[in-house]
């Protein structure tokens, strides 16, 4: 078990209280709220990818397919001018995405390594062109969502999605829940088998596990959460675009996940915030932000062996 729990605990205790308090300081500036919200949504997406790549050893370059699917699914199944229930549609979208993941996972998990990277890419590209070439789905220009869902449970409504601060807290809650969920998942009996498969698939088969089933299950879980992230993204601005499904989206998510520390789950949040933070800072500083971004990425690969999370742990080890 690569990542120790202490760093994770420290991270959680620093990050979440800060994130909880942030709107109190920055409520005046709607942009920071919405920027933080969108970074958290993407962190959720990166986290689902991190589980798949880092914990299960299933490297995919097609995860953005589910991110985009989350958005398009909502557009497809929700009535255009009527507020639907957020939770009910979360359930629908996760279920449909799971069904899609079940079929695609059944096909792609027969391959491994680089071949799996490419076959997941192939399916994602097909989905990308499906949406970007068809007029019914708004083509290259994308679609608008006009009415945001309401969030009542048994008549009680905690979040008003039209209010950026409410939406911020909904996303923070989602991120926190996802982190907790993955922690539980990793510590569960299921997680034990997944770890075992990641470390030594041959041995695990010899112990009598049908590793395909476990991989498929993991793929479905991660895909459903990826779709949930895409659904949140769509709700934030009410905008769906095929570029959500583009391979570059999968690519940058992968970069953030590696940067954060593969398989550490909480590293996904770290990686996303660091990457987005750098991107934001650099692009406001210079037109040639790409040069510095690239150089920084290269430098970070050289310095951090297991991403930022891994580096933090090393620091902590040294001190204790």
């Amino acid at each position, binding site marked *: 078990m690569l990542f120790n729990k202490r760093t994770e605990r*420290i991270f959680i*205790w*620093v990050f979440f209280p800060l994130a909880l308090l942030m709107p109190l*300081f*920055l409520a*005046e*500036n*709607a*942009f*920071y709220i*919405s*920027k933080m919200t*969108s970074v958290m949504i993407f962190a959720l997406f990166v986290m689902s990818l991190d589980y798949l790549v880092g914990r299960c050893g299933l490297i995919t370059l097609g995860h953005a397919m589910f991110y985009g699917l989350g958005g398009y699914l909502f557009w497809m199944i929700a009535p255009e001018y009527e507020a639907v229930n957020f939770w009910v549609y979360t359930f629908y979208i996760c279920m449909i995405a799971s069904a899609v993941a079940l079929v695609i996972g059944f096909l792609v998990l027969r391959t491994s390594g680089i071949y799996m990277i490419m076959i997941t890419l192939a399916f994602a590209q097909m989905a990308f*062109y499906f949406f*970007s*070439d068809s*007029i019914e789905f708004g*083509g*290259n*220009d*994308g679609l*608008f969502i006009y009415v945001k869902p309401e969030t009542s449970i048994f008549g009680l409504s905690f979040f008003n999605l039209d209010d950026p601060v409410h939406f911020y807290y909904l996303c923070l809650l989602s991120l926190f829940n996802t982190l907790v969920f993955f922690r539980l998942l990793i510590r569960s009996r299921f997680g034990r088998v997944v770890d075992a498969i990641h470390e030594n698939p041959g041995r695990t088969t010899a112990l009598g596990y049908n590793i395909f089933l476990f991989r498929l299950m993991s793929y479905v879980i991660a895909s459903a959460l990826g779709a949930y992230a895409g659904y949140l*993204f769509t709700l*934030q*601005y*009410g*905008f769906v*675009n095929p*570029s*959500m499904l583009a391979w*570059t*989206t999968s690519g940058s998510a992968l970069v953030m996940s590696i940067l954060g520390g593969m398989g550490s789950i909480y590293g996904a949040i770290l990686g996303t915030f660091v990457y987005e933070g750098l991107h934001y800072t650099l*692009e*406001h500083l210079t*037109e040639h*932000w*790409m040069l510095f971004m690239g150089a920084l990425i290269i430098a970070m690969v050289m310095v951090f062996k297991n991403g930022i999370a891994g580096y933090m742990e090393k620091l902590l080890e040294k001190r204790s």
Partner: protein
Amino acid sequence: MFKSKTLRHAVVASLATLSLSSSVMASDEPIKVGMMLPFSGVYGALGDATRNGLKMALQEQASNLHGRKIEYIEIDTEARPERAPEIASSLLNNSEADFIIGPVHSGVAMGMLKVLRGQDTVMIVPNAGAGPVTGPLCSPNVFRTSFSSWQPSYPMGHVALEKGYKKVVTMSWNYGMGKESLDAFEESFTAGGGEIVKKILVPFPKTEFQAYLSEIASINPDAVFVFFAGGGAVKFVKDYDALGLKGKIPLLGSGFLTEGTLEAQGESAEGILTTLHYADSLDNELNTQFRSAYKQQFGKASDIYAVQGYDTGLMIASAVNQLGGDISNQNALIKALESTTVRSPRGDFTFSTAHNPVQNIYLRTVENGENKVVEIAAPALADPARGCKL
């Protein structure tokens, strides 16, 4: 986990910054112009030119701004639509820009509109021709200084009929702008009795045209009408020549086919007929002045994108001048903008009720590496603005 002292410091610090930023006097503040343009990648050249034109205009008009300075905030959209809402929100809420200029790419335009429609800022589109911007999604605070994709292509149908072409193949990338252009051409061409024998939509951004051109050659139509821009336009025109279609089947296009690409296209572009709201060789004083000034300042020839940026600057300056420098009342600002007549290098133009330019469309042909104006294909053409309720 963390020391409570540190936290308190952080709280105090951020509160202090907050109160500082809101206490600055409004009248001393510069006019903030946010730019959401692509400065890298495939559309990078377009973003550059637009920015240059815009800055040049505002520099020239500095004396008309009633002492107000201009502050620019430039953000690279990378032509990624999924980032558009966020950047727009950043310019709107964080930078509190008075004007937001952008974008080049239609998908990005849609994402921007989602955030900026009806907000307390003015969005001016200096290029993206997507119909909905001044159609069903039009809004009081959204203007366009360029064109709707319908505008440059619609007159070409009449031109083709006049030339006596009966059967035409149309072709473009399979995306909004391309499809809208082909539809506009088809509208006027078929209304006059012409026939579209085949409509080819190439997946964007594919540039392997050989297979399609071979097919066109086998159909052998009277003419070919295309919409391509930038690198794709270069490749298409070169392929059209290399495969021997040039000189045998006349090539017509929406003007972007030969804008900013002529140097790279070289000989291959000679003789192509296009329609557009501008031409480098337009014979008027303003244009000559503009072109030489631009060349002097930036060291390269201006193009349509520079003109569009320039006109955006003129439009802003004119409104600021009309209001005596006080642009704090949004309704007044919008009124001023609406009533502006832009004295542009492309010829004077006004705005339609949907906030799209009412402008001349010129028929041009490529001669010696330049777009030469043949005639005015449609004078003061207004976009039908289908679906706009303004």
